[in-house]
């Protein structure tokens, strides 16, 4: 694990354009440091998911420079991308569970992809299932799980490999407040072990729960306050109106 002072992600004048459309992200310049906890916020359509896609290597930027784990993504050989992706855990907004695999197999998938033997997989998977409170649903298919349960499976799959970076897109959108807090505790525990966490959320209360978290706010594809984009600690005044800009309701814990 890199020491916490190392930059793990570096963006310089990054722009992202889908096809010939307008830029979804423009002029992003920031640095994320290893072992930190970041919240990414902003109204719907501000480009949060696009920024996360760049972070979990589902997209290459159209311009600018992105450095990840010290390597320039623009020049990185394609065959090295899988290795990078294995170091990044992702909680997708729509979970993206494999529909015909059980909860167990979905969570075990990153370990199998990494080449771990079946005999070594059972214990960590059962532990994490226990952790997210799904021990009783080991063999359940995603379709038979509630939204909240699916989200917990998605989170368990993202963290099972103890990634260097965890990227989560609205990871608590479908769970009850108790579970949201519990999941946040899991993220915190991972963060304490050195994982850099980036959580996109509208949930102001969630943001205030992590005292040492820093914030980025996107608006219209740009960091709304580039100089003060990474704040520590978040000021309540900054968060006023951040969460409700697209009509979502904050849920009290």
């Amino acid at each position, binding site marked *: 694990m890199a020491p916490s002072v190392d930059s793990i992600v570096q963006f310089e004048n990054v722009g992202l354009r889908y096809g010939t459309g307008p830029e979804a992200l423009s002029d992003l310049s920031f640095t994320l440091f290893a072992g930190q906890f970041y919240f990414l916020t902003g109204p719907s359509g501000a480009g949060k998911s696009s920024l996360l896609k760049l972070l979990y290597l589902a997209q290459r930027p159209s311009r600018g420079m992105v450095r990840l784990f010290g390597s320039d993504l623009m020049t990185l050989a394609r065959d090295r991308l899988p290795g990078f992706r294995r170091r990044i855990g992702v909680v997708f907004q729509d979970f993206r569970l494999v529909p015909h695999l059980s909860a167990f197999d979905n969570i075990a998938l990153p370990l*199998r992809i990494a080449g771990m033997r079946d005999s070594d997989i059972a214990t960590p998977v059962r532990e994490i299932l226990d952790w997210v409170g799904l021990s009783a649903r080991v063999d359940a298919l995603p379709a038979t799980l509630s939204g909240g349960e699916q989200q917990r499976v998605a989170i368990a799959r993202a963290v099972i490999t103890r990634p260097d970076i965890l990227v989560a897109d609205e990871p608590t959108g479908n769970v009850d407040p108790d579970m949201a807090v519990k999941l946040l505790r899991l993220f915190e525990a991972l963060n304490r072990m050195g994982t850099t966490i980036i959580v996109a959320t509208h949930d102001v209360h969630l943001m205030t729960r992590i005292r040492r978290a820093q914030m980025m706010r996107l608006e219209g594809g740009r960091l709304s306050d580039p100089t003060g984009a990474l704040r520590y600690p978040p000021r309540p005044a900054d968060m006023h109106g951040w969460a409700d800009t697209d009509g979502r309701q904050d849920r009290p814990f």
Partner: protein
Amino acid sequence: MLGSFFPTRHDRRLIPQARLTGPMPWVMAVMLFLTLLATAAALALGSAARQVNADLAGRATVQIVNADSEARQKQALAAEAVLRSDRAVTGIRQVSEAEVRALLTPWLGSGATSRDIPLPALIDVDFRTAAGPAALARLREALKTAAPDARIDAHGQWLKPVFGLIATLRWLAIALVALLALATTASVMLSARSSFAAHSETIDIMHLLGSTHQQIARLFQRRIALDAAMGALLGCLLAVPVLWMLARAASQLDSGLVSAGSFAAIDWLLLACVPIAGIALAVFTARVTVLGALRKKL
């Protein structure tokens, strides 16, 4: 495990597909059946051509047609000497008058004598290889002076149209095998593409979780290999009795002049390679198709 050669229970679950329900194994079975028949035809025609070649093309007959038996005998001896000295000739045999008479008995009756009907002197000539036009021309030239009444007939010459037909049919069979291979490739490509499209969601997820293109391609390769293997088995089960019956029918067709093409051990070995080659072709095509499709992803 995603890296092992044979699909594990987990791999099968990852890209699920009920066995023998898709068109793939059946298409493979039909292709394999037809390919086996075409290959067998090509091999049988090949061996027939070889046999005809060996039986006849390496031989010629020299006839000396002269009514005067003395002159005929003299010329025959001279021709023999010319033939013996030629480097392409491996052996000669003067056909005795009794033999010639025996050959003619069905037409002339047993009472005919040489005095009634002058019979030509016949010399059987065996060549080192098939008598080429050059060797024949050379012999004709040499015989012109030694035995002016000599006429040389290469046996291959009589059968030229038969050879031509056999060769044409053989090339046709080879072309059929090639076309069938092409059609198999195309159908595997379509099948791999549709399977890839049907599982695109799973592939995207695996991709984002750090699967390499090789790992994903391997899943499809194994799936197609299983389908192809089952199709091949089915195709073989259909083709073997048909081939056996054809081989039996052909062996009864023995015309005396040309023995019908039959399978040597090497031919059976080649036939056994057809299903293996079919499976290999399917796996290779699936791999190339899937890797090509994956190349479009980041």
